[in-house]
């Protein structure tokens, strides 16, 4: 397909990157299956180009093709990719190496598996510096610490030597960002760089990128599902749909005058913060048909109230989880990460409690502590009246049927050697809920409902896109018909249309089976839609909790206010509005040995709406 000529570009400058007729295919059995078809676009200096599109439409593959990082023997790249006039596809491997990380660097979509598990993160970032520049180790270290601070990792100096598994999802993502920015590249490819970040940090990161763009003349290829971010950062936008770039144009045009039905569908489905004002209960997303762009199912408020008379299904009291920090040769305990500190809440059947908060504030750890995947330090957890902490192994196993978890990093949570069909069917068979054939039928059904094809069951995790893997993870939890689901960033990697579909599915299931969700998310718009109540966490503690309407419409705690204010608005005309770059000190949850946190007091603002004082 031809590139539309209506691309505004600074005259004089040639494009930094020029992609012409890019077609990338994967080998499936003996055939080659194209997943990116004849895509062409240019990126000018200092320009930000966003790629948006359906999950699995080939965005990540496009970016990996540019970097030539796809597996050698099972993929094929055709077309032409020119960096500053130089053809990359025919470059020798040593020259290509010099391009990577130096001229083009990339932020990968899934930070957990993309970081080397056995090297300290500081070292991994430093490597990006030292392999292209001659700097001393000490200088590199200094630079890395600066970078870590820039991406707002608290206690950067002491976390230099920590390993990826000791970081939260968002912190890992920030490490990836720091790594990519370390060498000040000419072109930055950012594949969903902010999905795991809360809106405040997301804003800061976007600002950081903007600053670099202005100072260093960096161009950015930005892949994201967040139309708010697109509106805020991109000059031009490419819309991808099933392997094709269906539309390319200035962001403004795309947002207001999108021609392709998918573009229109995409934009009309974008949830906007504040659209729920006046509604008390969660609301279904409207479903827009991607082929025609016509809304097929209108949005609707769910019609069932929560039965609060029944005792809550999940009761968490004074939950505290700390991770010891050991240092020195002797491995003495030198402090602890107070990841979760004195957290109490309860969750009723049929209710959605959303957990929002800064990246690294302990949301995932809360979820994991409740399912006893990490051992809590103190506190009590009652699930359906039974004390979770004191369960023996058999009972724990049964308990896990009741409560299921969607992991934040779906790729890492899938066995790389197991076909996803087996992975999805596994819990069902494991708990003896039915025959293999029934499991297969059920798995196929659920996969279809989360927007995947049943014939994908034969493929392995690495053959999927990030969003597809996330849906597989959701499908797996649904196999058991649990009563509580801890959904840790379960829909963050999905494009709006699929996100709507999956959220509607979750709401529907909640209605029919009275499911309770602990919904951990950074996407405030989605949180607003789906939750009955919202808890805001900060540095391991709940600072504000209450009915959604109360918290969103009447935020009390300063952090909550900041959070609400930082949500980007999907409107390109507001681009020029600048955030004040926050210069406040980054707070750290790391405490010295023997630190006793003060007892917190809560103030009741309105019925059920508590705020820490």
């Amino acid at each position: 397909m031809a590139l539309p000529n209506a691309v505004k570009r600074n005259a004089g400058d040639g494009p930094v990157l020029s992609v012409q007729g890019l077609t990338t295919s994967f080998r499936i059995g003996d055939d080659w299956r194209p997943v990116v078809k004849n895509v062409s676009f240019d990126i000018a200096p200092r320009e930000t180009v966003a790629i948006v599109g359906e999950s699995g439409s080939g965005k990540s593959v496009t970016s990996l093709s540019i970097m030539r990082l796809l597996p050698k023997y099972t993929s094929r790249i055709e077309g032409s990719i020119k960096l500053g006039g130089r053809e990359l596809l025919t470059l020798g491997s040593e020259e290509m190496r010099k391009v990577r990380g130096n001229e083009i660097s990339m932020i990968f979509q899934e930070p957990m598996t993309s970081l080397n598990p056995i090297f300290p993160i500081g070292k991994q970032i430093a490597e990006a510096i030292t392999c292209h520049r001659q700097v001393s180790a000490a200088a590199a270290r200094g630079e890395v610490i600066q970078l870590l601070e820039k991406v707002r990792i608290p206690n950067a100096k002491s976390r230099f030597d920590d390993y990826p598994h000791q970081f939260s999802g968002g912190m890992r993502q920030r490490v990836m960002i720091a790594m990519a920015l370390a060498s000040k590249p000419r072109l930055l490819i950012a594949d969903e760089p902010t999905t795991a970040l809360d809106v405040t940090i997301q804003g800061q990161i976007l600002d950081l990128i903007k600053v670099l763009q202005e100072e260093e003349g960096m161009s950015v290829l930005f892949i994201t599902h967040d139309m708010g971010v697109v509106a805020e950062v991109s000059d031009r936008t490419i819309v991808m749909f099933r392997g094709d770039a269906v539309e390319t144009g200035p962001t403004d045009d795309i947002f207001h005058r999108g021609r392709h039905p998918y573009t229109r569908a995409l934009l009309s489905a974008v949830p906007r913060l504040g659209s729920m004002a006046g509604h008390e209960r969660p609301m279904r997303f409207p479903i827009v048909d991607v082929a025609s762009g016509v809304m097929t199912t209108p949005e609707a408020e769910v019609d069932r109230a929560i039965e609060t008379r029944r005792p809550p299904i999940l009761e968490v009291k004074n939950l505290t989880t700390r991770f010891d920090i050991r240092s020195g040769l002797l491995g003495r305990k030198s402090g602890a990460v107070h990841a979760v500190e004195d957290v109490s809440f309860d969750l009723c059947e049929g209710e959605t409690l959303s957990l929002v908060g800064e990246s690294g504030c302990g949301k995932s750890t809360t979820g994991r502590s409740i399912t006893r995947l990490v051992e809590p330090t103190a506190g009590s957890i009652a699930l359906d009246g039974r004390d979770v902490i004191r369960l023996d192994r058999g009972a724990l196993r049964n308990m896990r049927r009741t409560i299921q978890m969607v992991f934040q990093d779906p790729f890492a949570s899938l066995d790389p050697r197991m076909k996803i069909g087996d992975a999805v069917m596994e819990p069902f068979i494991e708990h003896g809920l039915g025959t293999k054939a029934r499991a297969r039928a059920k798995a196929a059904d659920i996969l279809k409902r989360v927007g995947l094809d049943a014939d994908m069951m034969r493929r392995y995790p690495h053959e999927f896109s990030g969003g597809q893997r996330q849906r597989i993870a959701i499908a797996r939890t649904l196999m058991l018909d649990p009563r509580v689901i801890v959904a840790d960033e379960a829909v963050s990697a999905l494009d709006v249309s699929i996100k709507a579909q999956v959220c509607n599915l979750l709401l529907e299931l909640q209605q029919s089976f009275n499911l309770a969700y602990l919904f951990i998310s950074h996407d405030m718009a989605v949180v607003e839609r789906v939750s009955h109540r919202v808890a805001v966490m900060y540095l391991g503690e709940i600072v504000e909790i209450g009915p959604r309407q109360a918290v969103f419409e009447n935020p009390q705690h300063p952090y909550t206010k900041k959070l609400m204010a930082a949500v980007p608005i999907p409107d390109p005309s507001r681009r020029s509005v600048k955030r004040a770059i926050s210069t406040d000190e980054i707070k750290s949850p790391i405490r010295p040995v023997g630190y006793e946190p003060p007892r917190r007091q809560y103030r009741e603002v309105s019925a059920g709406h508590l705020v820490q004082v």
Partner: protein
Amino acid sequence: MTDATIAAPAVSPDVEKRGLWRQFRAHPGGVAGLAVFLFIVVAVYAGPLIHTVEPNKIDIRAKNQGPSLAHPFGTDNLGHDMLAQVLAGGQISLAVGITAMLLALFLGTLVGVLSGYLRRLDGILMRLTDLFLALPLLPLLLVIIMLFRDTLRAAFGPETGIFILIVFVIGITSWMHTARIVRGDVLAVKNQEFILAAKSSGMREHRVILKHILPNVMSSIMVSATLGIASAIITESALSFLGLGFPSDFPTWGRLLYDGANFLQLTPSRVLWPGLAISLTVLSVNFIGDAIRDALDPRTLKR
């Protein structure tokens, strides 16, 4: 609302099995290995039907001969036909090599996985492994023989009894390496998030081990298996010098090689063939192992 995919028929487990086989077949080394291995097996069991000379037939007048039509592999210093001996020896060596290797592999994997996965058992199982590693082999073998040979001989007859004994002896004296290696791998694998995810879905521990841990430590096990078959064949021959192997009129590859070593210059064919047979067996098993490994690893390049 679905992704771009090529239409495919519904998957049945049968198809999946065939898929594994298809991947195996895509591996030329593996196919060649399997072919050679099958050839060796068939030759060793069907060969005596074609080459009908009795392996223990002594023809002292025809001793130390080079290859000829009557004796394609030549003869040894008592006039045994070497081809017949190699074929007969193959039956024993293959059977012992494979069963002993499987036993050692089973024990090693069991101990390795248990101690790697279950913290409680780790200390005791690894100290047991240390003990077995430290035990002097020869005295241990002598004691085992002394205690069990006659009982087994009485229970199963001389041949089967000795076979069981040998397999048992090799098995329980060679599982330790596998155990330590598997344990190391398990320690690394068990901390990965997908194990946590499997546990969080309420999988029983042994299922986690079988379905998630084992496939991910398979490549080391495969290497242990290939190396194990070679050492089992050689160890068997060493056993017979202690008087605990098969009686001396049961040829085995290892012993043919040992007996022939001194005749290297006189009748080179005497060592060439058993040596070749052992090497080919091990090589072919190695390639089969490689192919299985590759078939199990969805990410490696497939050729």
